[in-house]
């Protein structure tokens, strides 16, 4: 067992946890404000594609990163308008965005780069392999501070728990919700950008491969709290790191354990936690409920 838990594995865990953590923190802002965000997957894809494409043209990953954030915010705005302005079912809207963002980057890369869904390779000097990792860890504490120590955080939580009361206290419910969803777009996009211009050196079709959903699971496992969410992301990162390191073969006791059994651990754990077997994971009370101001 000992040769598995090496320094390399720890670093690999942190690196695989980073995109999850960024997306999960994004989801936290949205869901704490009461808007379900299963669009994280699509938001990550928007960030990943835009960051890689713009880095290719601009030659600077920082320009790419900023463009990626812009794309994430723009796509999140669609989700926000649908959910907040038009009372769309938040899960349905999120699903639509996920489908949209598998299609749009593929079409654009087909037109721009004449490829079937990937961007050209970016030179190694133009990658940002560590900044997002540090940023993600910093953002955990920033998020904690914002959420529990600032008026904005108080309003965000109030809007997610009891929008009527927040409204009565003079908070503009919808404005706070817009901020939450747009922030989620920005953070998830950084997570996506890290995949395309941090971990690897190009955007490939559907490169998030479910990470947005895993981030959502981590958010639930972390009970919608920043530090616990980080721990959940690290756990999910660990299982991914192990399955990468073992290349499908995991032999802790001489007996081969199929990689699939390691992959499912976080998912099973999420179901168990959600069912309330390991502490209660309670969603913000107004999560998924559109707010209608009384007239």
């Amino acid at each position, binding site marked *: 067992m000992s040769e598995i838990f090496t320094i390399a594995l720890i670093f690999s865990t942190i690196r695989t946890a980073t995109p999850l953590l960024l997306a999960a923190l994004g989801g936290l802002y949205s869901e704490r404000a009461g808007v*379900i965000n*299963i669009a994280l997957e699509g938001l990550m894809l928007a960030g990943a594609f835009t960051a890689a494409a713009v880095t290719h043209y601009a030659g600077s990953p920082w320009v790419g990163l900023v463009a990626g954030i812009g794309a994430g915010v723009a796509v999140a705005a*669609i989700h926000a308008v*649908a959910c907040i*302005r*038009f*009372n*769309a*079912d938040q*899960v*349905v*809207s999120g*699903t*639509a*965005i*996920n*489908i*949209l963002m*598998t*299609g*749009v980057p*593929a*079409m*654009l890369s*087909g*037109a721009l780069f*004449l490829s*079937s*869904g990937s961007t050209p390779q970016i030179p190694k000097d133009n990658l940002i392999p560590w900044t997002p990792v540090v940023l993600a860890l910093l953002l955990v504490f920033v998020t904690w501070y914002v959420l529990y120590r600032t008026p904005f955080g108080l309003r965000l939580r109030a809007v997610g728990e009891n929008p009527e009361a927040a409204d009565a206290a003079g908070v503009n419910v919808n404005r706070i919700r817009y901020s939450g969803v747009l922030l989620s777009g920005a953070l998830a996009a950084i997570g996506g950008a890290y995949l395309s211009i941090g971990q690897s050196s190009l955007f490939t079709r559907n490169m998030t491969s*479910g990470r947005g*959903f895993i981030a*959502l*699971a981590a958010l*639930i496992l972390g009970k919608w709290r920043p530090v616990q969410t980080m721990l959940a992301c690290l756990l999910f990162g660990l299982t991914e790191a192990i399955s990468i390191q073992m290349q499908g073969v995991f032999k802790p006791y001489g007996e081969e354990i*199929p990689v*699939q*059994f390691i*992959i*499912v651990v976080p*998912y*099973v754990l*999420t*179901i168990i936690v*959600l*069912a*309330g077997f390991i502490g209660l994971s309670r*969603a913000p009370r107004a999560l998924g409920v*559109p707010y*209608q101001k009384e007239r």
Partner: protein
Amino acid sequence: MKLLRELFFPLVAVLAAFVLGGIFVWLIGDNPFETYRLLIGSAFSWPDGIGYTLFYATPLIFTGLAVAVAFRCGLLNIGAEGQLYVAAFATAWVGIKFGGTVVDVFGTPVNYSWMTLPGVVLVPLAILTAIFVGAAWGAIPGILKARFGSHEVINTIMLNFIAIALVSYFTQYHFKQAGDPILQTVPIGAGVHLPRLGSFVPGLPTRIPLNLAFLFALLACVLVYIFLWRTKWGYAIRATGANPTAAEYGGISTGKQIVLAMAVSGGLAGMVGINEVLGYRYRYYDGFSAGYGFTGIAVALLGRNHPLGVLLSALLFGMLIRGGIFVDAFSGKVSKDLVEVLQAIVILFVACEALFRGSFGKFGLLKRSKV
């Protein structure tokens, strides 16, 4: 008149999606009219266009119905993807274990079966296995919701991942032929193959994989209609979906309806396995679903969660999938991913129904309506 009103809104949504999609195509630098001619025109030729359109529509009818039944109970089943995977694998398992001698990938006859059952027994057994395994997998989030109140959306997402890992494990470690480079099971026995419609329909060649499962899909539409609107179970499910509190006061056990609706939903999703395994590939092929479970959400929404609407919108999406292949091949810059973009815009418009509802003649397109 009521039918017209029901049809009007989805048509507007589709039209809006095509207009926006067209603008997107134009921005990319292709001719939208030419693209749409390829996308739609290729679907109407006989026999290939119609045959393939119906074939691609078949899984979408099943998943669309699956999502619709859950919707009627107030549940969003985004787990059809996982349900259809476990069901497809299970039906392949029946075909392998009871189907008799098969010819393997290297052309050698092999027998993997415990026993060889005759077709009259085996085909219904394989079909029922797909339905029941799908239903069982679908019932899990139903039970979790009814018993523990945990949200079905998260649980179905998690169960999708678990299902995919599970069947990929069984395929890779227990049912793959050694030396086969593709992650797929050994073939199922010939006795369990569903006939292709080409064997009955004059002019339709049997190379087109449209098979008996399409007729099952049509039958499923009728049965779902009867179930939802002509049985007491369907009534209880719809009552739960419309207003759970009122249903509970009316003596309906909402928990049971949630489990029942999810099981029926899962069973319908599982029927995709019949089309895929028994009617098309004659084996389980890992990762075969092109997001049928998610497209099913678009199909159900556009079809107003009604079997007839599901049928029509599944045909539309089947047509787009067929046309997408031609767009890929014959247009300059646009790829078949346009289909996904159109799908997504349709879902968004249908979801934002308030954008259209009750606002005509008042220039109130952007006026918020009271829900």
